[in-house]
């Protein structure tokens, strides 16, 4: 074992430069160098290989112990590249939870939305969009939360991400995907000079957020399918009341302004938040049992 105990005392020049670094004047350096050179007279013991081995024998049992899973997770978190790879891996795993039929169906709904926009329905196109967008929620969100039916809660609880994170991740995937679809549609519309693209996104996302939020909230008390159908039915009724075609003569249709749609989106978000919180507490209780 190499000993560094005598640095910088082996070399007077090195010692002088050390003193210079400490802001010592030339007179002080000349005065103190001989004193400090004497420090090398006192040798400290150097541990032998046996000493080192003995120390390690004593220390090794105190090494932190982690399960292989935790060790693998920590190893992945060490560098930015590994973090990115891990994120992509988790995202792909989360995305793979969705059945291919979901992606296909949602894409078909998207195509339907595009057709509706470019069709000669006129003012009815917005109505159709509002009616069809919650379908994505039903086929996406409701079908996604299938773990409660497949008895895989224990499996989710032992996963490194918490159930709360899983729910959020799934919701983010669905909402992100649908936002992307909405923006694509809006961009197409805008590029063809077809009006306000942000308004269209609002028409597309608002029902999605509201229906998913309320449905999830109701699912805490009734079955998921019933909650989704009930919410969708109420939304459908609300949209119909805003459309002249479905309102009796002499009765003024209820207005559905952009501000109101934004308010609905916020209500949906709040409902989602409440559900995520409630699910997490519920999962913790189950875990404690």
């Amino acid at each position, binding site marked *: 074992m190499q000993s560094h*105990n005598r640095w910088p*005392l082996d070399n007077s020049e090195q010692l002088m430069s050390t003193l210079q670094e400490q802001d010592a004047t030339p007179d002080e350096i000349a005065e103190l160098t001989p004193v400090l050179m*004497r420090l090398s007279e006192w040798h400290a013991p150097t541990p032998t290989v046996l000493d080192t081995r003995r120390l390690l024998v004593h220390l090794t049992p105190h090494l932190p112990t982690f399960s292989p899973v935790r060790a693998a997770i920590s190893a992945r978190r060490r560098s930015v590249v590994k973090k990115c790879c891990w994120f992509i891996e988790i995202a792909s795993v989360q995305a793979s939870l969705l059945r291919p039929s979901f992606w296909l169906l949602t894409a078909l709904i998207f195509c339907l939305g595009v057709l509706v926009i470019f069709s000669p329905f006129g003012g009815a196109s917005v109505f159709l969009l509002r009616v069809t967008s919650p379908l994505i929620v039903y086929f996406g969100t409701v079908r996604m939360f299938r773990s409660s039916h497949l008895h895989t809660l224990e499996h989710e609880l032992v996963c490194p991400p918490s159930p709360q994170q899983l729910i959020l991740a799934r919701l983010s995937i669905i909402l992100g995907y649908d936002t992307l679809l909405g923006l694509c549609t809006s961009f197409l519309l805008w590029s063809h000079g077809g009006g306000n693209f942000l308004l269209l996104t609002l028409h597309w996302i608002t029902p999605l957020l509201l229906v998913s939020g309320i449905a999830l909230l109701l699912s805490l008390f009734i079955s998921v399918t019933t909650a989704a159908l009930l919410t969708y039915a109420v939304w459908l009724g609300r949209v119909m009341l805003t459309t002249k075609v479905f309102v009796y003569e002499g009765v003024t249709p209820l207005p559905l302004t952009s501000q109101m749609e934004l308010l609905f989106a916020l209500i949906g978000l709040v409902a989602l938040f409440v559900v995520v919180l409630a699910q997490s507490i519920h999962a913790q209780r189950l875990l404690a049992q």
Partner: protein
Amino acid sequence: MNSLSDEQLMAEVMLGKEAALTILVERHYGQLLGYLYRYVGGNRPLAEDIVQETFLRVLQQHSYQQGRPVKPWLYTIATNLVRDHFKSATINHMIQPCEAILAGVQDSALGPEEQVVLAEQGGIVAHAIGQLTDEYRATLLLRFYNGLSLQEIADVLHIPLGTVKSRLSVGTRQLRRSLTGIQEGLTQ
């Protein structure tokens, strides 16, 4: 694994890697032992105990922040352990060189040859360093025996850079006075 930095090794140690711990101990054991041996006045068993306790604290703390410089951290723990040891009620507050060194220095009947032998054994220097107060002794040891930079010493002792320089300056002068005093006592 030998090419890894202390900080990278420490991250591996926190994951329970024995190989990383071995390299880290091999890198710092000698230096830490030397520092503590001189700090406690040449008491090797005590220095060995504190080295062991230092590494144990490192393993048990579980609070290592990634990238935090390991070397100053080790010396901070070691220094605090020495201070705690001497603060305890049963221990004499003055750090004195161990008996073998002290007996040689205090024996004024030594002949010139014996004085040379004593000097070679470092008895005079040990006694002079033992006369320094704790803050000056720690600063001087870290600087001149262990080769820590000024900033590293500041980090170890949690003091400003200017204070490190001041302690080095004052401490070196005190050391010179002690050495002269002891030398004069021996030659009388």
